[in-house]
């Protein structure tokens, strides 16, 4: 399992493929307060989209420069938005 769902957090590890977007989505829908810990070698766009749409609290690092520079900043937690 590369998407590990725990009580307080969801860990993304290894290579997260497109099919795991659904797991991530349901885990976040069930408990939106869960923190998402990024620790993956690769993350498919589908998972990024779930994060962009749900805007959970994120910790950890993006797997590549591009997502770190241009995607991650877009996932600001909802409560911080005006």
């Amino acid at each position, binding site marked *: 399992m590369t998407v590990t769902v725990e009580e307080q957090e969801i860990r993304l590890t290894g290579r997260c493929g497109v099919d795991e977007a659904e797991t991530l989505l349901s885990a976040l829908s069930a408990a939106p307060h869960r923190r998402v810990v990024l620790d993956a070698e690769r993350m498919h766009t589908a998972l990024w989209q*779930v994060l962009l749409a749900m805007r959970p609290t994120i910790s950890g690092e993006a797997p590549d*420069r*591009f*997502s770190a520079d241009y995607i991650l900043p877009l996932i600001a937690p909802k409560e911080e938005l005006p």
Partner: protein
Amino acid sequence: MDDLLAQFVIEAAELTQQAAEDLLALDREPGDRGRLGSAFRAIHTLKGSVGLFDLAPMHDTLHAAEDVLGCAVKDDAEIDPARIDPLLAIIEWIDRCVQRLERAGVLAPTAADEGAELVLSLASGGSAPPAVMPMTDGAVPSWAQRLFTAHPAIRERGVVALRYSPAPECFFNGDDPIALMAAIPEVFFARVSTREDWPGEAEFDPFRSNLIFEAISTAKRSEVEAVFRLIPDQIAIAQDPESDAKEFSAESGETITRTIRVDLARIDDIVALAGELQTLKSGLPALVAQAQALEGGIALSRKVAAVHQDLGRLVSQLQRSATDVRMVPLSDTFRRLARLAREISGQTGKPLQLDVRGGEIEADKTIVDGLYEPLLHIIRNAADHGIEAEEQRLSVGKPSKGTISVSARQVGHSIELKVSDDGRGIEPERIRSAALARGFISAETAATLGDSDSLELLFTPGFSTSETVSDLSGRGVGMDAVRASVRRLGGKVAVSSAFAIGTTIVLSMPTSFAMSRVIVVTVAGEQYGVPMESITETVRIPATAIIPVRGGEASVLRDRTIPVVRLGNIVGAVAQARSEELMLVLEIGAAAVGLVVDGIGERFETLLRPPAGLLKAVRGILGTTVLGDGRIVMVLDLEVLLA
């Protein structure tokens, strides 16, 4: 024709060919950016080269053609099909100009008018002047323009803007848009937006792509295109029009050239490395023997032997290919002879005709270049001494124009170069008496010397039969100089002559420098190479067996007295006295000579090339070679050193 112009003629032919091919391809497929860029580069380079000479009509015409292509490149537009024909006409005209330059050295007097007309037809060929060429889908779209203007600082470096709109269902095709974006090199700025607002949780479909990416990269356009080559329908790429079109074209990849000019030193490095591999390879048989000596080592020795064989084959192939790279046609040198003949004809007042055949035959560049000097002397000699004055020729029924023909043909691995003139020929009797008068031969020799041997006397240093020393052949540059330079290149020269009919000089040249076997000798701690071919045996003799004889030394070897020379004395390193001496017995011509050295070392095969640079001026050096361990040794030309 001077060398620079000659070089230009070759280059121009390649470039016009390239431009014509590209334009024809553009005619079939107007959207081919690679071809457009290539045509622009060819014309641009050609214009640059033309600028080195006083060829204004060509330059102006090329400039107009470059403008048209340059605009299309810069605006990322297609070239107007109506302009292809006028452009091709210009290329054809340039080609004709180049041919004329090669033949006559100058442009036709009508060239300026012809060029102006072509430029005019190029301008009227298109429906609009280049500045307002119709913008097709390749024009800079507004999104790209926004990106470019938002980041002015980076624009000087020539940037590429891209807009990637992944298809909503692209995940099912295996696409990963963010991964693709991450793969773009040198992203300077990117913006990620959504196609639609994110829906609520209930409607959210995680398998539907909803992102749109815009970015600028300082990488080459081709590199950016490569990332998206599988999804050209979802990507738009635009080149910043502000960036230099020239730079873009030079960088847009897909350079289609068939020849490259390479520094000779680089090729020589490859040839030398191949030679060293060959040397290294010769160490394997010893390993085979060692393996055989091992208990149960037969299988291993067989394997090593097999590797040795394979390696040998490959190394030989590598060496052949590397040697082939250095091959150039003889015409490279022959071309210079025509001008020389004209010059000589003017100086002597003798009408001359130079026939050249076999220029397509190839040889190593050093040989082809090195042939110019001996050919120059031979042709000068022929014009000066061989070809009679015009009235004399007419009186003996020869055509007024003297003919010198240079012909080359390939004979096995060597080239036979014949230089014949239809002049007065050489009288062996006159040679003999001249040699006798100058004290080169004795009266008895003069009486018994055969005709062909008499002609050999021509190669004696300082020999000349001409009563007057002319401006041309002059003093001191005789046939001996010809023989020396031919010999340096590993060739031989022979002369034959028929009185009143003409003289023929035959040069037999190698096509490339073959491997020679060399043995390393040491003297006073220094190492030199000696060609194995001249060594008949190696002997150890007591120091007392070397007896001083008049100014020199000699030794009796198997009832034969041979002169003895100490290599130390020749190279200026006097060896210590010893009780036993090591002597190489050399056969030079018909004579044997003993050469005393301190020791002998490894033997190896090497590629010997004539020395270049400073070493060229040093007498007695055949060339240099690199030993297996990287040391460089000079290979001695014993024939010269012992003469």
